[in-house]
């Protein structure tokens, strides 16, 4: 279970990107985080695994206070938080297998990873996940030789390799066509169901969010302005989140 309490991030100048966000995500729940550009969706995800250091507030995963950890402790905690990116963020010049195995870097020593000597169990797992995401037989292809949908599948397999308790998913479909977007969202949802993973999914596409998420959280100017079931996302609620067409802001 993930618990964010009073999470605030203030960049050097201007309004805070996140302003006192409280959010609890139980295991197995997929939360879609929607909101206009600049609402703080990406900042929220990056503050959760401290790729961006929050200004105040706390992040707690399964009772462990992430925001209180030293850098060594944080590295161990990050293993439990798989991250999936909009532009996939694969290592372009490495093979699919190396990319998937990189999900285990937090568990293996430097020289073992340098010489690509991962434990046999990790390699077995990697083959298993490649099969699960529909990329069996792709292990020796280079990441830059794949299509967008295939790359995102590699990204998902990499995140699963971490044996995560939580998935942080940042705009997984923004670089994909509509059909591939639906396939990827479905895959993420299925995997969370199979493994009982909590997930926060930043997403621009409200229709996709409504269809695939268990719960929708609306963020506006760094503040949670909506939190409820997809059915509760009425036109009025959408206006609260995105503002009306006629007004700026």
């Amino acid at each position, binding site marked *: 279970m993930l618990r964010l309490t009073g999470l605030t991030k203030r960049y050097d100048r201007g309004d805070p990107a996140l302003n006192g966000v409280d959010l609890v995500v139980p295991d197995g729940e997929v939360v879609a985080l929607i909101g206009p550009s600049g609402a703080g969706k990406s900042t929220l995800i990056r503050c959760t*695994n401290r*790729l961006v250091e929050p200004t105040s507030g706390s992040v707690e995963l399964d009772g462990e206070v992430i925001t209180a950890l030293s850098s060594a402790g944080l*590295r*161990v*905690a*990050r*293993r439990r*938080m*798989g*991250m999936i*990116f909009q*532009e996939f*963020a*694969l*290592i*372009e*010049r*490495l093979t699919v297998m*190396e990319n998937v195995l*990189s*999900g*285990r*870097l*937090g*568990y293996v020593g*430097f020289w073992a*990873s*340098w010489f690509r000597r991962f434990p046999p169990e990790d390699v077995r797992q990697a083959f298993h996940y490649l099969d699960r995401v529909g990329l069996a037989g792709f292990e020796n292809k280079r990441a830059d030789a794949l299509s967008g949908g295939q790359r995102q599948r590699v*990204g998902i397999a*990499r995140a699963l390799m*971490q044996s995560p308790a939580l998935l*942080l998913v940042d705009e997984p479909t923004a670089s994909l066509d509509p059909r591939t977007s639906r396939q990827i969202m479905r895959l993420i949802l299925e995997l969370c169901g199979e493994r009982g993973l909590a997930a926060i999914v930043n997403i621009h596409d409200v229709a996709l969010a409504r269809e695939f998420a268990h719960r929708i959280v609306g963020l506006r100017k760094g503040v949670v302005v909506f939190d409820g079931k997809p059915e509760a996302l009425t036109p009025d609620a959408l206006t609260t989140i995105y503002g009306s067409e006629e007004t700026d802001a």
Partner: protein
Amino acid sequence: MTQVWRRRTTKAQWAIWAGWMIGTLIVAQGWHFIAEATLWDFVWDAPTQAADMLGRMVPPRWSYAPAIVKPLWDTVNIATLGTLLAILMATPIAFLAARNTTPQAIPLRPVALGVIAVSRSINTLIWALLLVTIVGPGMLAGILSVALHSIGFFGKLLYEAIEEIDPAQTEAIAATGASQAQVLAYGVVPQVMPTFAGVSVYRWDINIRESAVLGIVGAGGIGLQLNASVSQLAWPQVTLILIAILGAVAVSEWLSAKVRAAIV
């Protein structure tokens, strides 16, 4: 009302005209000065001299070939070992100098940048002059001077490549819980590998040419024979040496082109 648009303001336009005017005057004055200081008899005589020298240079003295095999081999070795030494030293320096991988912004990064600047600003031949007096004449001085000058070249190009990598890839590796060394090994190294290999062979290629003249100051290689032949006015020998150097350079260029094509 007609709307008028100009690319520059009138003032900017006048400033540009004035700039061209001053530039033209400087060139004209400089030309005049050079013409005054030139001994034109020598200049008019140059084509005759060149033709005369060329006449004495051919045919090459092929029988001299066995004597330059060893120095030519030394030259290639000076370039190769010097380049390898430079790569070994410059790689860590580049990681210290790159803004996104340096462990310490002050004072480590400026020190690394300083090493690169000093190494680059002193020519290989000058390094050789210094090193011949320190370690004595011979190949060792040549290898070290090639290495010391190449550190700057290699380090600069590599650290610029490191600064230009895609940060999303390193972020993704950091997010898995990888250590900082692993972030370098997986997030940075694969991205700079093409530059690393490309610059290595390119510098090796340059160093073959540079080490051909190091013998002039006593730092080993074929430059010694070249210098000796020129001072003895043994022009057919000079021709042969130039042909040998040309051959070595051609081979190194061919090899480095092959390597670069293989690693994109």
